[in-house]
């Protein structure tokens, strides 16, 4: 079974889902993330779904569960990069993902996490793409 990698970027755990996940892979990610949050004491989780061409109710529910688990473990989750067609489809499916915070891309997601957390954002920001830190 494939596994979705979890990267530590400063105080943030970054997950970029690049594969069409089997249900078991999504459940494994849920468990892996919970363990990594505790092990790294990170307070922010960023999940990039820009490579996903669909989010069905199973993946939607998994994202919501991950956000809830993270919150219980003192970490905030932001889902970033949802494609417009995916957003339209999700809402029509009946899933509006209440309780999940979203941002349009990774940079904006990191800003969102930085804004409401008191953790040191410098390390994460310096490792991010240049535009994120070059703004005047």
């Amino acid at each position: 079974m494939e596994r979705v990698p979890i990267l530590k970027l400063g105080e943030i755990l970054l997950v970029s889902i690049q594969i069409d996940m089997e249900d078991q892979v999504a459940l494994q990610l849920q468990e892996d993330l919970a363990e990594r949050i505790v092990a790294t004491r990170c307070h922010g989780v960023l999940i990039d779904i820009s490579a996903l061409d669909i989010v069905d109710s199973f993946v939607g529910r998994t994202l919501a569960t991950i956000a809830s688990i993270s919150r219980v473990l003192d970490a905030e989750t932001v889902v970033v990069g949802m494609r417009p067609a995916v957003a339209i489809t999700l809402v029509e499916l009946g899933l509006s993902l209440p309780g999940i915070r979203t941002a349009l891309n990774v940079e904006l997601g990191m800003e969102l996490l930085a804004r409401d957390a008191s953790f040191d954002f410098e390390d994460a920001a310096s490792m991010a793409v240049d535009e994120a830190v070059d703004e005047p």
Partner: protein
Amino acid sequence: MSDGERIEVGTDQDVVRVRQLVRTVAVSVKLSLVDQTKLVTAASELARNTLVYGGGGTVEVARVDNGRRRGIQIVFADQGPGIADLELALTDGYTTGGGLGLGLSGARRLVDEFLIDTSIGRGTTVTVTKWCR
């Protein structure tokens, strides 16, 4: 219906294969990006139902043409327990399987035509069609 392709659905991996096949056919009949996304999402929900509630079954994907428009028809068939109360099963939020209860009702909203044939102890067949605009 022509040149249909069939996938046996018995595992999670087969649900992924159904999504990929539907995506390929949706692109080939030139569905718009939003319609491709809706159809692949509906197919994912229904193939999972075939697996989880039907105990496995088959999915057939075919190009269709009604003389005016082209489209895709997908048939999900299982020999599972069948659905006792169809109206209830099609209600948002109703589930017997611990899910969100959006699979059947949500999938119906995402396609143009939705037919369901079910009988207790014999199984369930869901046929959906999406037409090019």
